[in-house]
């Protein structure tokens, strides 16, 4: 044993000796990498000197993404540096907003924004994100329109209205998202017109249009260009002060005798984080103005029902403030927000926090006791599987408790938010119990496996690596983890380890950081 230890020790020393010559080389490479990244500029520095990131809150392919990409393309003619579109989907814009706010206020991050962001921030109680932004430029809008399918026999607003009256609350309006800007517009339209409608949310406008083409609903609320999907689609009403040049046949709500819907539109613009130097804000103002006057930019929006209209920061901020208040009011009316400004925790209606905490603690205690008993009993060979089942069952029970505070079924949504999770839980519990019964009834002699020490060491190294990334940064953490992981797995080729570490860091930098614009964490040290 001693001999083995001494051999191991000398091997370790030899390895350390071999490793020490290349560690400084790697460290210097590591120190070089951040310097290749964007350095934070002083406000007085010439601007811009590096690519500007336009952060888009959706996946590639949405209308805001298209707007940003078209803008970036044309802006290249007026800017010495490229503008690069970065997609940061998630949380209806929260992820993108948080990312933009975490970046320095140096003007190198522009956020592409739409009116949908306001409804989402209000619905989730994140009005703080709205307040932290500098709403720099409003660049365009398009009105919301109601589209019907001619095949359904509804070819005008009057027919749609009469149909709604005859159906009561059974007229189906299709559109994207619940509690989104279009949903709120639909609620306002129905209210102003004195009719009732049932909002059927789809995950995208495209899917909703497909459903309208299949006569799954009576109307679709969306953008004018959505009507181009088929010749069967027709615009029956436009929420604008005057008719659209590209759809001259479609009447406005005002013409139809329904006033107050002229501002039911989706706007798009750009925001910066607050604190960007005035000189850089001016630079953006000029750039956006130049792009807005570009003939190609204007031509690219022809036939899309889009109105190109510029509003400066003051007017834009006022509009955002008005929209925020309006969404607070209407989301409360729809029932998606209990009181204006209330936070998302209450949106979910989790009021029984203490009961939940008590229940969670009880489940943890029961599982801990069960684990102690099982691992010391004759059931030791089955303890792991029994604990898996116990863990899953406990989690299912906790989820069941939490469903109590979810919105219950209603006449509009007869299943409710709690229905499907409960169904899965009802299915899981008997199956898990049956599996336990099978184990208990047929206790096959499971061979007790040896404790996987090597795996636990590797797993510990990996967990340390992941935990260290936010602290040391990706580069330093990877530099430490890669050779450590190889060493743990008994790989003893110092030159290959050096080549692998260098190669990996370069690959990460070139492919992810430079090509894909993934901002790898730099940690708290750099």
């Amino acid at each position, binding site marked *: 044993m001693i001999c083995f230890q001494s051999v191991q020790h000398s091997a370790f020393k030899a390895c350390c000796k071999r490793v020490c010559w290349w560690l400084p080389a790697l460290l210097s490479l590591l120190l070089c990498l951040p310097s290749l990244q964007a350095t934070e500029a002083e406000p007085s520095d010439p601007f811009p000197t590096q690519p500007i990131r336009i952060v888009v809150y959706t996946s590639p392919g949405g209308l805001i993404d298209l707007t940003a990409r078209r803008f970036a393309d044309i802006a290249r003619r007026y800017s010495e540096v490229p503008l690069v579109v970065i997609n940061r989907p998630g949380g*209806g814009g929260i992820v993108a907003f948080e990312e933009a706010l975490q970046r320095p206020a140096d003007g190198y991050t522009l956020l592409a924004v739409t009116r949908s962001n306001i409804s989402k921030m209000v619905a989730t109680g994140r009005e703080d994100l709205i307040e932290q932004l500098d709403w720099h430029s409003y660049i365009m809008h398009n009105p919301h329109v109601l589209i019907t399918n001619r095949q359904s026999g509804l070819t005008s607003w009057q027919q749609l209205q009469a149909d709604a009256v005859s159906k009561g609350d059974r007229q189906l309006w299709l559109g994207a998202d619940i509690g989104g800007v279009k949903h709120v517009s639909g609620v306002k339209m129905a209210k102003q017109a004195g009719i009732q409608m049932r909002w059927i949310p789809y995950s995208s406008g495209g899917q909703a249009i497909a459903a309208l083409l299949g006569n799954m609903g009576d109307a679709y609320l969306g953008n004018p260009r959505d009507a181009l999907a*088929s010749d069967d689609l027709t615009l029956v009403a436009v929420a604008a002060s005057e008719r659209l040049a590209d759809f001259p046949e479609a009447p406005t709500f005002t013409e139809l005798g329904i006033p107050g819907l002229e501002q039911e539109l989706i706007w798009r613009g750009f925001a910066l984080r607050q604190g960007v130097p005035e000189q850089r804000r001016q630079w953006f103002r000029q750039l956006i103005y130049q792009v807005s006057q570009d003939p190609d930019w204007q031509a690219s929006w022809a036939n899309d029902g889009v109105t190109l209209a510029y509003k400066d920061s003051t007017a834009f901020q006022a509009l955002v403030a008005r929209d925020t208040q309006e969404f607070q009011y209407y989301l409360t009316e729809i029932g998606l927000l209990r009181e204006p400004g209330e936070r998302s925790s209450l949106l979910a209606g989790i009021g029984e926090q203490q009961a939940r905490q008590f229940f969670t603690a009880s489940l943890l205690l029961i599982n801990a006791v069960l684990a102690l008993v099982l691992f010391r009993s004759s059931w030791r060979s089955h303890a792991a599987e029994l604990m898996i089942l116990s863990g899953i069952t406990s989690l299912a029970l906790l989820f069941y408790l939490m469903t109590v505070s979810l919105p219950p079924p209603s006449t509009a949504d007869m299943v409710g938010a709690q229905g*499907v999770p409960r169904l899965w839980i009802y299915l899981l519990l008997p199956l898990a119990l049956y599996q336990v019964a099978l184990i208990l009834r047929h206790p096959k002699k499971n061979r007790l496996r040896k404790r996987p020490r090597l795996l636990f060491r590797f797993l510990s190294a990996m967990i340390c690596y992941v935990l260290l990334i936010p602290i040391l940064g990706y580069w330093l953490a990877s530099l430490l983890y890669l050779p450590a992981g190889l060493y743990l797995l008994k790989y003893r080729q110092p030159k290959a380890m050096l080549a692998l570490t260098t190669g990996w860091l370069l690959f990460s930098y070139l492919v992810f950081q430079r090509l894909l614009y993934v901002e790898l964490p730099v940690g708290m040290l750099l």
Partner: protein
Amino acid sequence: MIEHLLAGSLSVLAWWPLLAILAGLVIGIIVGAIPGLSPSMGVALLVPFTYGMSPMLALILLLAIYIGASYGGSITAITINAPGTASAVVTAIDGHAMTRQGRPAKALGISIVTSAVAGMIGTVVLMLFSQPLAAIAVTFHPAEYFALALFGLATISSLAGANWLKAFIAAIIGLLINTIGTDPISGADRFTFNYTPLSDGFLLIPALIGLFALSEVFSRIEQRDFRVRHLNEVQDSWPSWLEYWQLKWVTLRSALIGTLIGIFPGAGATIASFISYDIAKKRSQTPEQFGQGSSEGVAAAEAANSGSVGGAMVPLLTLGIPGSATTAVLVGAMMIHKLNPGPQLFLSSPELMYGLFAAMLLANAALLLVGLAGSRLWIRVTDIPKPVLFVLISLMAVIGAYSVRNSMFDVFCCLGFGILGWVLKRKDYPLAPVILGMVLGSIAETNFRRAVMMDGYEVFLTRPVSAILLGLALLSFVLPLVRTNPTTRKHPPTD
């Protein structure tokens, strides 16, 4: 149509379009093969490079990336059990089993050939029947989407074999995980514990990487399986022409299933792969080999996956409706090039549309060449010392999960799923049903609730397609269970 197709083909048979196809395929394969990078990401990445190109050339390049990336996911699924996309999970079941048996060349060969052939079949269907298929696609009621999702879930019985009980528990874990996040209908936060990153639930890509790639690494380290299988052991095992020929029916059938399911917006390649795999197993003369390294299993999954590309293009080109994330990017790209996808495009630019069809055919043929040449390179993965491979996979998992939305939360999730996958696998719980539950859970729930909101509960039985699909789903669930004794566990886990 013939003259348009000829004109379109002639415009594609030039240097630049051919170069665009080759470049697109190579980029797409690389993107698909890197865990964490999706086909939509790859296409979006290249959109800015197409600004200066003609619309035709730009779309050819982007379509080639789409085709390449759809195939690329299977490479890592087969070689290192790290499916790049959810649909490649099915490929991994038998493909990686073949690799572990020392037959990676055979799995890679089958996957590339069936992918290319199915891609061509899908394109031919797109060319000939796009208009009537689009008309069918839009008439699919939410009740029918729900029934289709349930039919997809029914494949668990087939995936599981004797382990049906554990497979169901695994699937329900996936379904329950899927309910975490913002409720798609009411907008309420469900099981998020007021933690913002959870409002979108657990993303599929980090879960996929964790459940498959990391859990595989952990299992292999636990077993101390560091044996290197040298190339000379496997070089002679590329499939023969006869073997390809024997897979003709399964390829054709799966390609058609993939194309048909691909046309429904939002359904996609994953359901198609699982259903094709299920049907292939039921019709196979050697069903017992499924899950143990069956050539038919790989062919069924890959053919359905590639066939769905042609299907997904049906609503895109005929109605301008994107059915998947990648086709949504393609819509954006078309609009950047001032093309409004939809029925008018067939009338205003027929040569462009048929040129694209010709390019898709050509790209699938070229995929065969690029893929086969590339496979000789990918197979060298088996030659890499295992410690190096395991550490590199763990690094790739971390950076891949992070790059999905620049979030360390996703990295923690990926690691968590890796540990969960290892624990489940250790106790013979199959992992594919977890992913199936995560993918189909939201399709099933949203369409179930949407259908009830529209027409009440009775709609599931009053609509014939829904009733038939539900009946088939029920049969698919029950039949394998009737044949199987739950207490016997002869078969090892399918993962």
